[in-house]
């Protein structure tokens, strides 16, 4: 736990070292505790927080939670519709199999759920081997068919016969981390440039503000499209992933820089800053030890609010085919299959990755909103 600097009028009620304690007969709480108390009152934000944790857990345990790997497919079951899980109390879980009829003209198979077939499925079944966290080799999956060869498409199949559920779960990892990495980069840029701009002011400030305004006035998406179309085709998935995060950060840092600058401007003349300077602290120490910690909560709030924007941006880019590409799986990549109405009318479940995007973005927005309200716990 770090000691947190507070506004001048409340410093007296804080005791360093203890989370809550008593001082001069008064109960005191540290700033983070106050933030948490305030955050807890925001019901939507709490719902968002739970959802967010859930989604990141899915991303962490993707291999275990998904019934199949990302590249597993069965070309006999293209566009197979979703199956319903049935519960038989005597024998366990099962789904019905499919019967397919081939269209005479187009040779496209259409599937019917066949009530007479039963495919036993189970929890913690043996399936494909994988390495959990890239370290622990394992072959158990949370859910899957007892006989690995049997078709199980709980959320339907895509045009190659991939299991959509598995790919959705695997896609969570890329989609949810790309925002984090992008934000981390944007944050570093934003803190440095915003800090310099707000602390020094004057001409430096003007120049940096011009740059920020420049970046804000360009329509982002054409710029992104240009930048990501410029990525060489022979680049591997990791390079592409990294390049996309950089592109996202290039656009995203401006908001961060504005927040940081605004805070610095308002804090510059506060008494505790003056006294720190009079105590002989150097510039870096004043900035990083005294000023920065006093608005960390604001920073966290604006970081949380900018992650969803990055997730949306990645989804749009990948949807257009300019972002990540197969074999990397992200929600945007999955949505590429849902490009036109004809496909959607035969396989509406292909829109499900979009629902995942909406849920994730909503959750993060709620959390960010709650944090923003709670960031200044002294405000009534």
């Amino acid at each position, binding site marked *: 736990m770090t000691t947190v600097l507070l506004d001048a009028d409340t410093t007296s009620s804080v005791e360093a070292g203890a989370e809550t304690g008593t001082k001069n007969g008064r109960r005191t709480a540290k700033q983070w505790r106050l933030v948490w108390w305030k955050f807890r009152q925001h019901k939507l934000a709490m719902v968002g927080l739970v959802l967010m944790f859930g989604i990141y857990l899915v991303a962490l345990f993707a291999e275990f939670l998904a019934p199949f790997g990302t590249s597993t497919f069965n070309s006999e079951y293209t566009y197979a519709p979703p199956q319903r899980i049935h519960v038989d109390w005597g024998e366990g879980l099962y789904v019905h199999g499919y019967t397919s009829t081939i269209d005479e003209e187009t040779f496209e198979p259409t599937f019917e759920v066949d009530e007479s077939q039963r495919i036993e499925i189970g929890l913690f079944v043996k399936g494909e081997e994988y390495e959990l966290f890239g370290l622990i080799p394992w072959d158990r999956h949370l859910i899957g068919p007892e006989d690995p060869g049997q078709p199980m498409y709980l959320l339907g199949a895509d045009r190659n016969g991939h299991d959509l559920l598995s790919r959705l779960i695997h896609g969570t990892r890329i989609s949810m981390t790309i925002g984090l990495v992008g934000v981390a980069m944007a944050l570093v840029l934003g803190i440095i440039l915003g800090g310099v701009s707000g602390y020094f002011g004057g001409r430096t400030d003007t120049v940096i503000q*011009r740059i920020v*305004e*420049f970046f*804000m*006035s*360009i*329509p*982002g*998406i*054409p*710029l992104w*499209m*240009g*930048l990501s*179309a*410029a*990525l*060489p085709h022979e680049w591997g998935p990791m390079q592409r992933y990294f390049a996309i995060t950089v592109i996202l950060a290039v656009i995203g840092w401006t908001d961060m820089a504005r927040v940081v600058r605004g805070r610095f401007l308002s804090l510059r003349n506060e008494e505790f800053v003056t006294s720190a300077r009079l105590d002989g602290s150097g510039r870096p120490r004043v900035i990083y030890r005294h000023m920065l910690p006093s608005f960390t909560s604001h920073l966290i709030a604006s970081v949380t609010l900018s992650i*969803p924007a990055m997730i*949306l941006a990645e*989804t*749009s880019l990948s*949807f*257009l085919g*300019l972002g990540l590409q197969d074999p990397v799986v992200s929600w945007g990549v999955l*949505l590429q299959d*849902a*490009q036109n*109405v004809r496909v*959607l*009318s035969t396989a*509406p479940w292909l*829109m499900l990755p*979009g629902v995942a*995007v*909406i849920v994730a*973005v*909503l959750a993060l*927005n*709620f959390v960010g909103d709650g944090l923003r309200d709670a960031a200044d716990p002294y405000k009534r």
Partner: protein
Amino acid sequence: MLTYIGRRCLYMVPTLFAISVVAFAIIQLPPGDFLTSWVTRMESEGEKVDPAMLEGLRERYALGDPFYVQYGKWISGILFHGDFGESFEFGRSVTSLVLDRLPWSIGLTVFALIFTWVVAFPIGLYSAVRQYSIGDYLATTIGFLGLAIPNFMLALAMMYIAYRVFGLSTSGISPLTIGIAIVVLGTAGTAGTIRILRANLLDELKKPYVVAARARGVSERALVVKYPVRMALNPFVSTIGWVLPGLVGGEVIVAQVLNLPTTGPLLFSALRTQDMYLAGSIILIISVLTVIGTLLSDILLAWLDPRVRLGYR
């Protein structure tokens, strides 16, 4: 006022210059150029390309020159002759290609902006005056949803509904498609605009003059409409500044999904085929129009609000 406008216009010059450099740099980034990708495409189709002809083309488009020479040619052509160069892919001048499509883009953007305002104004007004009512919560929820749904998802969903429920096809120019595009684009900015209006109006409603007017028995309706709304409207004008870049960008994606004849799909295909003058010019034109739109909104704001005007002295 004139000083203000003059100053803002002067500030625009370096921005525009930077935009033109960025736009040109982007199209230079990919390895190879249009001719190399054109040759590979031709060869994959089994056609032989005459090296002499290739050399001639290279010469004509000045593709061998260093970056700054190419940029110089391009930008001086635009500045002095209004000539944006020639599209390799279409074999037509960029100007005529873009002129075909630009009116659609501008029209869509303007209507989407109007849609945003028409929807956001009454909702923002209502949720400020009736703070914490059911309607207020409803508006906030819808606003959050609008922020969370990617533009193209909304477009896809509406297309799907139109197709499945009403049996209508949505592709290319039709009143339905354009309507969908406007609604989809408009909703994206609505959430933010509602929030701003609500916050401004709430601030204004707490001010002493409102309390004083209420104490003297001014009717609630006149009280709200006469001053606070007018005050809260000023920042409304400046929303153009941040709604516009988003709208223009969103338009690129939505038009791609709905297959509308705007600059979006043209830019998209130009980027794919490395049709550099076309792609660069579209990015440049879109960005410049956005900057001008922002400038207009700033001037409008300064005209409406003397505080802004004086602050710039």
